[in-house]
């Protein structure tokens, strides 16, 4: 069978990584839903940092597949994107980098101190 690559979206092969991460999110959400006696998860909200190492579009692609047969079947995925913020050790100021090299906009030195942007968090669910 030829690889599945729908035009305009990430292909299934490309999304293998996100399938496993999505499945982990749904497992954790289901555990919480059961604990609270919920019958169905209607909405699942994730916070994904720009440095988390996952592609949000691929998460959205994988989501309905991994929800099949779970309490989250038919639910909606909402992703909050968390931008990278880092700290310049010299200027002691936080900034949002604009490129792969996190150069401080004031002094130009690359920052090694990442304050946020690595989040891969199950933030919230809506239960029915």
């Amino acid at each position, binding site marked *: 069978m030829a690889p599945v690559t729908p035009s305009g979206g990430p292909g299934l092969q490309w999304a293998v990584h996100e399938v496993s991460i999505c499945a982990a999110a749904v497992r954790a959400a289901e555990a919480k839903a059961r604990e609270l006696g919920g019958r169905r998860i209607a909405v699942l909200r994730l916070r994904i940092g720009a440095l988390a190492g*996952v592609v949000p579009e691929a998460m959205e692609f994988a989501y309905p597949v991994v929800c099949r047969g779970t309490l989250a079947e038919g639910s909606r995925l909402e992703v909050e994107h968390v931008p990278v913020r880092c700290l310049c050790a010299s200027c002691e100021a936080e900034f949002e980098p604009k490129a792969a090299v996190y150069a401080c906009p004031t002094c130009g030195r690359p920052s090694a101190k990442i304050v946020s942007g690595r989040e891969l968090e199950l933030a919230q669910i809506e239960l029915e």
Partner: protein
Amino acid sequence: MEERKIVDIAQAVLAENDRMAATLRADFDRLGVFCLNVMSSPGAGKTALLERTLSDLAGEVPIGVVVGDLATDNDAARLRGKGARVVQVTTDGYCHLEANMVRAALDALGLDGLRLLIVENVGNLVCPATHDLGEHARVVLFSVTEGEDKPLKYPTLFKTADLVLVTKIDLAEAVEFRRDEALEAVRGVAPQADVLEVSAKTGLGLERWYEWLRRRLQPER
């Protein structure tokens, strides 16, 4: 319409993996084992570097190796017979190793008596970044044949590196490798990392890599 309840959770999606990684790290610390997670794109020379490293160091330091690949145990076969304990994990299509895979591999390998555990991750410059395997340090390789701007193209993984090894340095001239440009890219993207240039083939730079390792080992028990 049915009433909806909003529930705040605020937990890491990979909490399960993180817990297993923390357990592994505690085991390593208790037993005095220093653990490295070695990552790169396929073909950057991870296995060649480890072959040489085992040959040169296994007589001095007891080393264990966990090798991850999508399929085949070819890499483990290359690493056997060099004085280290080696176990292969085939991920069966998975693009990275997870902590529970390392746990399973260690059940087969055993940590007793080891001072250095090297986990050779699946060849991939994207996916392994997300999963903590309980390692103490991350080593990211990139070879001179891959292009000077590799760190700029795959910043996420390079930004997690403790050490970047520029490999196949013996080929630098043949491929017209622009060394200054590459080092500037590494240092810009990964200012937290140490950087060493090595050749597993000629041995160039390897002594500094071994020194980097030795400094991190716990004293013999």
